[in-house]
Structure formats: structure tokens, C-alpha cells
């Protein structure tokens, strides 16, 4: 029988505007997650990370003076950490590592390292055939997806804004959120904010902050001897669909349809069994498309589905309970923080924003321009 694998530690680095280096934030995230698990760097034999340098996992191993038996530097944007959960679980099951840390940190706000046009790599086809048109990367792609969605299924920008309004409601319950204490927002606020790439305004777009996080994985058998309630990896799935703006025919049908289907099948559950949902909200449309594609509602139905307050605190489908990339923290590849929040909810440690009795959670990452999609199903015994 295949060994079962669990997350036994989870933590954030400092968040917001830190003035700290990437490796300092990485060190905070990793050591705090290990401390949460009752472990130290000496216990780690597997490292999965990205966003540090060309040799990210190698770099971090060197920085921690570890010589791991397994590493992974899958570079897939914001979904990479959900993909790494799958790879790490497989590595533990195969006996290639016993204790794996998955981590990410960025100082993009302090370092002012983000560019509206994205990263220029002159040798790729997009440099010749797309970048000359001055699209914003990645927001213009999501903008086109939003335009196609509203055109195809109807609905309004105000309905889409509910994603940002609900995220703010959650952030007001999370003292670590960047927008904590900043008060609620309305759909009207969102649609009348400065237009960036129509139909998306600045309030449809995630924050740009520093931040990071880490999770620690080991076998469920070993997890039972560690201090925290083990959060078991029940299922996972992924899809990789495009780098260019023109590879995918239907922008309203993202790879999350397939990644979610695979993850739910592996876990042997359906969306109806999910108590708390964390999806990447790089933009309002990203989260809306993900909720629909994962099967929480029918095709073309998400704007009506969320209109009744369902995704807000107290609603039937608690979504992005940290406040999300829109109102909590967005250090770039936000997917690691989806996992951290899912773990905290399942352990019952989320304070004012705790979803009562949550025992099954889904974390779903999206990377690039709806390029990569990875879903993880997590659970605890209650």
C-alpha cells in the first residue's frame, strides 16, 4: 500500500513591506514552518523552491548548508507550490526523502522589482510576436479572459467585483492582511477604480507586496509523532496549457477544469465535500474562473453563484479566507500561501476567520497567464 503523506508544519515569513532580502524571508518562512512541525534544518532532506535564482533549490540548500537527497525547482509561476506538493508526496512515497520543505519568498515591493510588461526573454517566440504590441503581462491576458467571459455568459463587472469585495471582508478578519483595518469596499468602488486593462481596474488586480511561506511534508506515520494535527494530502492534479496569448482557443475554459477533476478523483471526493477553498486570485477573474472550473458551480454560472454572499465570511463556500492576493498578501508566486492558509483552517488556528469544523480544504494555484493550474485536496480527521 502506498504510504500516506501529510503537511506537518506551515508558516509565513514577514509580509507586506519588509526591507528584507529574499533569502532572509526564505529563512524566516522555512525555520518558522519547521519550528511549527517540531523540527529543525537538520531534519530536512528534501527542498522544493523557486524564485531565488537560476538554481533555486540548489541555492537554498547551499544557504542552509544542507545536501538534500531530493530537490525540485519546478518553475511554473503561482501554481508551482501545489505542483511541488504532488512531487514531494511522490518522493516521500518512493523513499527518496523523508522530510521535505516547500518554500517561496519575494521582496518584490521593497525591491521594486515588478515590471508592467513582464520579464523580457528575447529568444522566445513571444518576444517577436507578442511583446511588440505592448500588452501588460500578465493582466492583459486575464482582461481578455474577463471580456470573453462576460461576452459569452453575460454578467456585469459589478458581479465580478464580488470576488474583491469578499476578499476584503475576509482580510478585515486577518491581522496579518495588508488591508487589515482598511475598511470594507463595494462593487462600485471596484468598477470605478482606475482602469488598467479593460475590463479590469486596479481593484480587480492583486496587491504587490513582499512575503513568503513554507510547508513541511513527511509521512503520515511519522506525522502522528509530531506536535501538530497532521493535514493529509488527499489528492492532486495539474494542467499546463500555454505561454503565449494565442495558444488557448477558449479563455473561459482554463486548465483548472482538468486539474480539479484529477485532484477530486484521486481524493475520492466532490466539490460538495469541500469546507474551505483557497484559489489564486491574481485578478478577480482568476478566482471566478477557478471556482467555476473546479466544479463548484456549472459552466457560465459563477457570477450568479457568488452573488448571494456565499464566498464571504459566514457563507456556504468560504473562499480565500486569508483575504487572498487581493487584500492579504501577494508576493508574486502566491501559491505557497494558499497552502499555508488551508493548513491553518484545517487545524482550527485561523482565529476570527476560522471556518467552524473545517475538515476538507482545496488549494488551487494558477501561474503565468492562465498557463499552469494545480489543485491539491487536503484533509484532517475530525
Amino acid at each position, binding site marked *: 500500500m502506498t504510504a500516506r503523506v501529510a503537511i506537518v508544519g506551515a508558516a509565513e515569513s514577514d509580509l507586506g513591506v519588509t526591507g528584507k532580502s529574499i533569502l532572509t524571508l526564505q529563512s524566516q518562512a522555512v525555520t518558522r514552518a519547521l519550528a511549527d512541525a517540531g523540527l529543525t534544518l537538520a531534519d530536512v532532506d528534501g527542498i522544493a523552491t523557486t524564485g531565488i535564482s537560476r538554481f533555486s533549490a540548489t541555492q537554498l540548500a547551499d544557504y542552509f548548508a544542507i545536501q538534500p537527497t531530493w530537490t525540485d525547482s519546478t518553475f511554473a509561476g503561482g501554481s508551482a507550490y501545489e505542483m511541488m506538493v504532488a512531487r514531494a508526496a511522490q518522493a516521500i512515497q518512493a523513499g527518496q526523502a523523508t522530510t521535505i520543505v516547500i518554500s517561496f519568498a519575494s521582496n518584490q515591493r521593497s525591491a521594486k522589482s515588478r515590471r508592467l510588461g513582464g520579464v523580457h526573454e528575447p529568444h522566445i517566440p513571444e518576444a*517577436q510576436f507578442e511583446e511588440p504590441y505592448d500588452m501588460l503581462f500578465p493582466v492583459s491576458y486575464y482582461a481578455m479572459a474577463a471580456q470573453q467571459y462576460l461576452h459569452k455568459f453575460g454578467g456585469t463587472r459589478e458581479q465580478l467585483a464580488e470576488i474583491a469585495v469578499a476578499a476584503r471582508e475576509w482580510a478585515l478578519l486577518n491581522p496579518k492582511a495588508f488591508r487589515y483595518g482598511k475598511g470594507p469596499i463595494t462593487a462600485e468602488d471596484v468598477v470605478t477604480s482606475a482602469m488598467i486593462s479593460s475590463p479590469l481596474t486596479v481593484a480587480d488586480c492583486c496587491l504587490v507586496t513582499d512575503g513568503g511561506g513554507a510547508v513541511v511534508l513527511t509521512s503520515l506515520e511519522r506525522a502522528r509523532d509530531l506536535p501538530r494535527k497532521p493535514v493529509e494530502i488527499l489528492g492532486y492534479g495539474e494542467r499546463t496549457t500555454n505561454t503565449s496569448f494565442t495558444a488557448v482557443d477558449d479563455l473561459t475554459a482554463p486548465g483548472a477544469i482538468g486539474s480539479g477533476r484529477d485532484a477530486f478523483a484521486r481524493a475520492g471526493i466532490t466539490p460538495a465535500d469541500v469546507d474551505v477553498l483557497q484559489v489564486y486570485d491574481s485578478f478577480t477573474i482568476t478566482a471566478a474562473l477557478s471556482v467555476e472550473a473546479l466544479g463548484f458551480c456549472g459552466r457560465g454560472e459563477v457570477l450568479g453563484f457568488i452573488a448571494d454572499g456565499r464566498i464571504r465570511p459566514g457563507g456556504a463556500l468560504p473562499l480565500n479566507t486569508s483575504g487572498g492576493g487581493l487584500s492579504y498578501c501577494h508576493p508574486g508566486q502566491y501559491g505557497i500561501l494558499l497552502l499555508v492558509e488551508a493548513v491553518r483552517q484545517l487545524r482550527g488556528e485561523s482565529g476570527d476567520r476560522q471556518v467552524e469544523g473545517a475538515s476538507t480544504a482545496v488549494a488551487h494555484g494558477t501561474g503565468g497567464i492562465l498557463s499552469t493550474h494545480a489543485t491539491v485536496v487536503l484533509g484532517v480527521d475530525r
Partner: protein
Amino acid sequence: MSLPEVPPADDVTTGWWDATREHRLMVQECTQCGHLQHPPRAVCTACSSMDHLELRETAGTGEVDACTVIHRAPRPDVDVPYTVARVRLTEGPLILTRLVDGDQWAIGDQVNVGWTDLPDGRALPVFH
């Protein structure tokens, strides 16, 4: 528009860019399986052939598949707002481009190719 810096053509894309000097819009055609693709590649994504890819001239017509009006430019000296779009060429492939002549474009609008000449003699296809 303030002209962008377009990287030089490479071994695969030289023919496509050379055609733009004569304001001809090409797509790649596989003579083995008939597949059309854009942008040009070293391989046919339908039949895997690397030996049957040729350039075929398009009619220069298409339909707006999606578009977005951009209000903050990613580089200096670009006038905003401007419209970036996916256009579905009449022959089938999608192309990323700009829509010129106004900012009131909608999905389904019929468009025709026009050209923005670059200092090196090449030209960027745009649509109106």
C-alpha cells in the same frame, strides 16, 4: 505609436518577417498534413514534421476574438489608451495584434490588416 524594439528574426522566423517588408501577412502551413499555425515554429504541432513547413499568404482579414484597452503602458513614450487584441484570421490561426482607429472594438468585429513600419524595414501587422 512609439515604435517597440522587435528582436531580430531567427532561423525559423526570417521568412515571416521578410514578408512583412512587402506588407504580406503569412501563416505557416504544413504541406504534409495541411495544418496552419502561428507563430512560425520549427515543427508542425499537428503531425510533428520538421520537413514540410512553408509560409502561406493570408487574406489579411479576420475577426476580433478578444480585446482589451490598456491605460498604463509598459514602456515610456507609448500613448494611452490603446487596444491589444487576439484576432482570429480567416484562415484559422489566432494572432496577437493591436486594433487601431479608435477604442470601441468588440468581440466579433470584422477587421483588416494594416502595417506599422519599423526602422529596419520590417513591419508589424496591426488591424483596423
